[in-house]
């Protein structure tokens, strides 16, 4: 540091002077404020864009001069090698194998995936046994799979449109069938418009990054599903977590962010709350009215994934918004799955015209993929028709859910985190020594909230379950139930890739097509299998 006057000082001061003068001159130009704001803001949002426009000018000069130079490698850590040395290094290099062979446990897992012969539905025939089983694993909540009306409509559509759409939506891949389903979904939910994607997973991974960019803030539930985690990873936004399905914790996090912003006096960025209607991981249900209240109060936009509630709950299957009587237009981006909710294929995002039109250019899975086969969108539209006109479906579905819960809630070797009204029921193994929360311990825990920067909640250290043993046990339960003619499924997880390990569970999916008796019988078998396998463990 120049503590003493050096001969360079006049030069420094001259440079600084002239820079300041330049700056002053720049600001005295009319319109410079706009230019400055333009560059600053466009640079912040998309540094590439500023560059691009700069390059545009440079390009003109370049083409005129035609001097093609390639950037050379002058990184700091670049080591120079001779050709011979490189050859040696190349010879020496041994890559790891592309994939490791499956372990025996994995082989078992893969080989025991049930294969259905013929129609999937409440009573599929299994290839392994050749016998018909009762399915409590198929995502066929409202029994649309195999519905004859839908089949007839699909065949009609086949004869009109063929199978594939052979093009992305932008280039002659949008048929009137797609437009109709988009309109039907929007009408059904009561939003302005909707946009269709050709796969449920990609809907989520496209919508979130289309809006959430670098520097934006996402406040997300700690229990969000894998696709949402991946979508947030792609978005590169700043992520803050709140405790799973705990809106109190959400409010604290929101307050914290607000305080931080006030302190830093940072610019206003886009802020989103991302959560699910019914959680894929455990079937908990979010308190939508409270969530909306918070979102409005703190001025966040809400991205709500209704993959497991659209077409599944509510009087006519409109999902959480119907169940809680909240207008769907209050949710900024409402995602749902046509594959799950309407038993066809694909997913959608419903919202305002602005929201959907934005995705038609920025939703990667929309722009860069062929639109879904038109016959599947026709099936989806017909599905909506059926749901609209027959609320009795949902009455029997809920009746079955109650029947199932009545049986399962009394089994003491398991816990069921799922909401009582959720037709998707997760069954977890009850830890052998769960201490019923000691009041003093509970008080102690609630003193310090979890750190919103990390997805792991504060009580993660108390988790006393072991993924592997539980997976093995649940696998046994599944096999046991199957041997008694009930097909159930362990919820599949990509172990090691989820941001937090998820406790293994069996996922039951209730369906309205089974009668109450049938449901009770099937769930009874599940209960017996649970007791048989888990009871053994105790001994």
């Amino acid at each position: 540091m120049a503590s003493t006057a050096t001969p360079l000082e006049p030069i420094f001061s001259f440079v600084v002077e002239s820079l300041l003068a330049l700056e002053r001159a720049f600001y005295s130009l009319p319109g410079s404020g706009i230019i400055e704001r333009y560059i600053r803001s466009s640079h912040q949002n998309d540094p590439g864009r500023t560059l691009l426009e700069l390059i545009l000018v440079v390009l003109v000069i370049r083409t005129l001069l035609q001097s093609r130079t390639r950037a050379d490698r002058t990184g700091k850590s670049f080591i120079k090698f001779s050709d011979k040395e490189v050859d040696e290094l190349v010879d020496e290099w041994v890559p790891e194998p592309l994939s490791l062979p499956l372990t025996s446990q994995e082989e078992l897992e893969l080989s025991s995936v049930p294969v259905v012969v013929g129609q999937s539905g409440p009573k599929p025939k299994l290839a392994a046994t050749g016998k018909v089983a009762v399915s409590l694993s198929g995502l066929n909540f409202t029994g649309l799979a195999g519905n004859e009306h839908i089949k007839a409509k699909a065949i009609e559509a086949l004869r009109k449109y063929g199978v594939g759409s052979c093009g992305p939506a932008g280039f002659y891949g949008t048929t009137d069938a797609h437009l109709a389903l988009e309109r039907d979904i929007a009408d059904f939910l009561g939003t302005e418009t909707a946009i269709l994607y050709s796969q449920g997973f990609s809907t989520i991974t496209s919508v979130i990054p289309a809006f959430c960019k670098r520097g934006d803030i996402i406040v997300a539930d700690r229990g969000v599903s894998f696709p949402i985690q991946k979508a947030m990873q792609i978005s590169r936004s700043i992520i803050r977590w709140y405790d799973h399905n705990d809106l109190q914790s959400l409010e604290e996090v929101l307050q914290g962010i607000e305080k931080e912003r006030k302190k830093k006096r940072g610019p206003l960025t886009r802020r989103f709350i991302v959560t699910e209607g019914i959680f894929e991981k455990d079937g908990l249900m979010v308190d939508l009215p409270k969530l909306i209240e918070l979102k409005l109060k703190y001025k966040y936009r809400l991205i709500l994934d209704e993959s497991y509630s659209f077409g599944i709950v509510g009087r006519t299957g409109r999902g959480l918004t119907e169940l809680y009587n909240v207008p769907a237009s209050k949710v900024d981006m409402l995602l749902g799955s046509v594959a799950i909710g309407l038993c066809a294929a694909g997913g959608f995002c419903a919202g305002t015209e602005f929201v959907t039109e934005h995705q038609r250019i920025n939703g990667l899975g929309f722009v860069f993929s062929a639109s879904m086969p038109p016959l599947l969108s026709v099936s989806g539209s017909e599905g909506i028709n059926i749901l609209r006109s027959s609320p009795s479906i949902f009455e029997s579905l809920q009746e079955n859910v109650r029947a199932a819960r009545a049986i399962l809630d009394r089994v003491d070797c398991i816990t069921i985190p799922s909401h009582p009204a959720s037709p998707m029921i997760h069954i977890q193994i009850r830890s052998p020594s769960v201490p019923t929360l000691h009041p003093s311990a509970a008080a102690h825990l609630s003193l310090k909230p979890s750190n919103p920067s990390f997805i792991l909640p504060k009580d993660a250290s108390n988790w006393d379950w072991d993924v592997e043993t539980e997976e093995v046990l649940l696998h046994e339960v599944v096999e046991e139930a199957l041997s008694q003619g009930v097909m159930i499924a362990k919820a599949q997880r990509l172990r090691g890739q989820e941001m937090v390990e998820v406790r293994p569970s069996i996922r039951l999916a209730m369906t309205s097509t089974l009668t109450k008796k049938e449901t009770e019988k099937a769930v009874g078998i599940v209960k017996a299998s649970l007791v048989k396998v888990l009871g053994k463990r105790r001994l």
Partner: protein
Amino acid sequence: MPTGSPLPSPMALKRSSPQHSMFKKRSSQSLSHMASAASYLSALSQADARARNSNGMSPTSTPALSLSSSVTSSSEDTVLNEDDELDNGDGLVIPTRPPTSEQVFTTVHSEFGHCANEEYRCVSQHTPGTIIPGHVEQDPPYYILLSTYISYLILICLGHFRDFFGKRFNPSAYRHLMAHDGYAPLNSDFDSFYTRRLKLRMDECFSQPITGVAGRTIQLLDRYSPDYNHTQILTGTRTRALNISSYNYLGFAQARGGCADVVEETIKRYGVTTCGTRLEGGTSELHTFSEALVAQFLGVEDALISSMGFATNSNYIPALVGKGCLIISDELNHASIRFGVRLSGASVRTFKHNDMASLESLLREVISQGQLKTHRPWKKILLIVEGLYSMEGTFVNLPAIMELKRKYKFYLFIDEAHSVGALGPHGRGVADYFNVDPRSIDILMGTFTKSFGAAGGYIAGNKALIDRLRLRGYSGAYAEAMTPPVLTQIIASMASIMGVNLPPPSTSSRHGSVGPADEIYQYPGPVPASSLPSWVTLPTALSSSEEGRDRLRRLTFNSRYFHSGLVKLGFITYGHPSSPVIPLLVFNPGKMNMFHRMMKDRKTPIIVVVVAYPATPLVTSRVRFCVSAAHTKEDIDCILRACDEVGDILDLKHGIPKSERWAIEDIVGRAVELANA
């Protein structure tokens, strides 16, 4: 978009009233609407087309005749139902030349054109020893480049100018782009600049809704915009157009015929869903059948199927590589690949498009330098390329890559989205085309959306790898399984290319010619009938693979003919001469809209895809043609004629020098010679 814009866009071509399509209605009153040069030019081309056709045949003289002998009974109703189309001067629905009595066609002409001339066939195959055309960028004259840059400059300046004044005089139109009520804008005026100020001007080229099959012809739902493309309103009428835009390489986009019949049967037997993910009870026997068939088709051990092509890349690449691994990616790789690469967490380096020298020097650099900072050796290096690039029409230089692979020991992932089905004497993709053993490629990825008229994608390779991916890919556990109708379309279309061995085993296992003796990989002949579900019966034309073979050869002929035709006309095109994707360079942004419009407003409407920045580099805006096996030679003639005329009007012919060009009639007359050159 209802985003009102304060100032009218001077370039948006405005149509004054809904019914009034000024170019289709050939009435004198339309003169009064010719507000711009564009409309004038367009109307000119219309008049020309009309003049040409007036000495052609009378439009309604043939239907009865050709219907009786050329169209199967089931398809009659599709043709006759379309009441708006009895005016058949354009040959779109009914062939202009009626078939002879011994010709029997089983396809609907509007979906899959009737073409019996055996001369119009070619085999798609690399001749060993010949050089593989790389990606040559042919530069247009300077004035074109200059005017292109200037156009963009003007557009950008004008856009900013309008934004500047718009925000002051009509702030309500910009409300959604500015922060308000404590919400940051969802999309700021800066982010959306290109969309609002450039794309919007040519919105009529995009997202055109259609109805029916996207086959050889396509039915457009006519629309107009009363407010400079902010809203598009459907008029309720339809226009049938020749379709050279859909990824329908083998022409399997059909609502009639053997494949569709089997799909109908599937819907009856299986419904339209399998209720869940592959690993959670959503696996149907159809999945097992089609995965095995795909593996057989490609000549590898095993394959898996995923319900969306985009997601096949984005959800499986992360299962292959991760931290400490390096992905080397061609600079022009598809968005889905880039998505997967980003999710994987691996490091990425790109090399110049299809440039093997650039690839080799990159390989030498990365292997010798090792990982960034630590210089530890990379765990794995995965090279990701596409077989056929969908914007450039280039083929990957596979022989050279295989050479490099032996030396540098990287793993190779080829995305064959566009090449599978479309290339190779047996339609098995680039490996088949270059006669490379498919088992020597680590990962073959492809989609069914294009050649097979279905949807979704596959990944194929050795069994251990595929089993690993079944468990570790995102789709197995979290994404819906592929639906039965789509699976059956895949089974039926693939089987019809391979042929099915019916119980008395026929010995017709050789099809197409096979390449040189040294490195022959023999693709398996017809598949045994047991590889298909027992209830599937294909008509003989399909099971004998005769039709499949015909499709492959027609596609190659059409591609080669069309490509050389465009070159001989003097256009600048990119890509391999056998590529079914043919980009025609337009450069000027303003010409794209015009090209699209003028092709669509012809007597025989032709629809094209135009692509500009950001899908292409800024200057090289282009029209992209996707040739199909469904096109007849007459269709290609018709499109070449149209390009010839439009190219003259728009000044697009900057390719080979004038002296080497051919007249359009020569090209049409010597098509076979051109295609086989």
